[in-house]
């Protein structure tokens, strides 16, 4: 039964596919990453609101896979490290190591107000004074949490040639 449902899903998606095809890759052809962009998400003490919005990105509504983007498990496989959360003191070393482990060319994206340095937990004893002191972010997305569309726009911008 579930197999039939997947077949139906296949047919249904194909119709949407023809419509969305024109929007694919955002009309983009150049840059260091071409048409493939892999992101490694790192939770540096986040409250998980940003993670829920990130999960929406992999769903049918926003679907980053049609742009050749995806989440990968290892920073060695990644082009971008997406940081959520205010970088707690416990994870400070790991954040640094993760970003260093990502091969060049690479982008660091700070997702959410916490990662940008001005979220609700800024100034707490358990978080670093400024995320910028741990790792420099190339792209910032503000919002608490930011909408999936805003994250998608930032991903497009990150892919578009920031080195």
């Amino acid at each position, binding site marked *: 039964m579930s197999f039939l449902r997947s077949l139906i899903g296949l047919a249904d998606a194909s119709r949407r596919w023809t419509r969305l095809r024109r929007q694919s890759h955002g009309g983009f052809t150049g840059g260091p990453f071409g048409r493939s962009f892999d992101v490694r998400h790192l939770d540096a003490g986040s409250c998980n609101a940003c993670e829920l919005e990130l999960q929406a990105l992999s769903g049918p509504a926003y679907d980053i896979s049609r742009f050749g983007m995806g989440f990968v498990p*290892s*920073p*060695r496989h990644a082009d971008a490290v997406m940081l959520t959360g205010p970088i707690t003191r416990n994870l400070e*070393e*790991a*954040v640094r*190591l*993760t970003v*260093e*482990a990502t091969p060049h060319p690479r982008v660091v994206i700070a997702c959410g107000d916490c990662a940008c340095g001005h979220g609700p937990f800024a100034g707490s004893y358990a978080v670093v004074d400024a995320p910028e002191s741990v790792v420099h972010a190339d792209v910032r997305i503000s919002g608490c949490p930011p909408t999936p569309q805003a994250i998608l726009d930032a991903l497009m911008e990150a892919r578009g040639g920031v080195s």
Partner: protein
Amino acid sequence: MFLIVAGALFISAALVAVSVPLERVRVLSGLLTTAGTFALLGDAVSRLVTPGPWGTVRVAVAVACAASSALSALHGLSYSAAWDGTRRSRALAAGFAIFVGGLYGVVVAEDYWALIVAWEIMTLASAVLVGVDYERPDTRVALAWYLGIGQISPLAFTLAVAVAAPPSWSIESIARSLAAASGPAQNLAFVALLLGAAAKAGLVPLHSWLPRAHPAAPSHVSAVMSGAMVTLGLLVFSRLAPLGAATAHPWWGWLLVTLGVVSVFLGVLNALVDGDLKRVLAYSTIENMGLLAVELALGLGFFDISVPVQRLALAAAGLHVVVHALAKTGLFLSAGTLIHLSGTRLLDRMGGLLRSAPGPATAFILCAMSAAAIPPLAGFAGELMLLRALVGAAHEVSQVPATALAAATAVIALGGAIAAGAYARAIGIALLGSSRSAQESHLSVVGLPEKVAVAVPAAVLLAAPLIVAALGLFGAAGDAMFSSLSELGVIDGMLLAAGAATFALTRGRIAKPVAMRPWVCGISTVTSRMQYTADSFSQPVVRVFAAVIRPSVQIDVDRHPLSAHTVRSRTYGRSTARIVEDALWQPALAAFARAARWGKRLQSGSISGYATWMLLGIVAVLLAARWL
């Protein structure tokens, strides 16, 4: 002529070993022994070029023995420095010279007495060598097993000869007498010969000495024992067995194939599980002898198959003997060097040896790939020929035997994959990654003889397919043995071409990585103890084959005296059951001990008792002579 020179050199090496001052024993005696083995090599090569009446198997065994002895003697020149300055260095040097002399003597003997004398010389000399480190308890146990099972071979062979009742002692007349003997006599002789061969080759269930004796001996001795000596049993079997009558007794071939297949399976499984580097190699030898038994079963005419298939199997046997000798010798020699460098024999204490000793480690990897029959090394050619022979034989025999041969093929295929896994584990844990212990050995210099001795077999196994393929292009190779090697050489060429194309695809950047600390999920301190151990690597396969391996786990927890919830340390140990020993040998030895205790009662100490027994014995003999 070569033989006389070699014999003289070995005898002088032994004399030198017992007479010169201790510091000079290794070099002087070693040089004489090495020269002697080169003479043996000359003899073997001359037999290869002009075989004369010698069969494929005998020529192959001769080449194997000579090559293995030469490489080990060369290796021993610097390797046996570990025993320098002790009286044992005399025993080691003299014993080794006599050992390789006796070894080759068994191969060239044309007369049964010469064969048995050479055999016993070889066994006793190798026993001295196995027991060189006699203060270790496991060495003493190994010696007991080695001599115990080792004596089965000459006894069984002599029983077969007695059954034959030949007119003269030459091997040919014994073989003729056996061929002409009656059915029951032939059956008895076959079983005796097979028993003797299996005991020497380490086929299951007579294999229990092999994983004990080969690790206990010094590595250059283990190399000769594992590479060359184990094939001698099957050689004598092939020379004496009444092969012409084999098709009249179909169960002969099946018994040989069954022993072979079971040895393959148990050998590789234990190789994958064991934690001692040299014992892994010893179990791999058991597997290879199992393969050789199957090849001989097909190639010597035990089955009713066509001549081309028989010749293919026999060529497979010959190539396998030579390639296995080279690979196993290379493996043991490089393992010995690596063990001296790291100071331990346990896989779980090693690591990163490829970076600290690139020469021996690379040789180990190449020889291991050949022993696991992985292309592009030469070992694959033997496996290819064996599988082709099995498929050809299965196609020709009737349905029931074909099913059994198909099952044998399946088990051998499974064995091949597990062997690859076992060697990947040994290489990965011992040579790659980083060192798991801080142990440093004082022997941190690898001598030049050792380096040469491990490089030669690796280079030969790597280059042989390519050279034979190149020769084949010029039409020089015609034999079945060489056609497989040249086929492998062409495949090697394909691999090289594909590799070059892939290298070009990455524009050469694949060969220039930037070195950085590993990612490991962002852990800040990565220690070498975090790596997988040999036990953990084999755990999934152990779980799959738990019914055969029967692992048992011991976990000891040391808790803090003040708080039972605080654990100070945990110790994990895993041991595997030795099924053949528990099922066969322990009960047999216990029964033997009981019988011996009963027999002690005959030694009552009273003269009248002894006189009574002697009287009864004479009466029994007179009656037997009267009635028979």
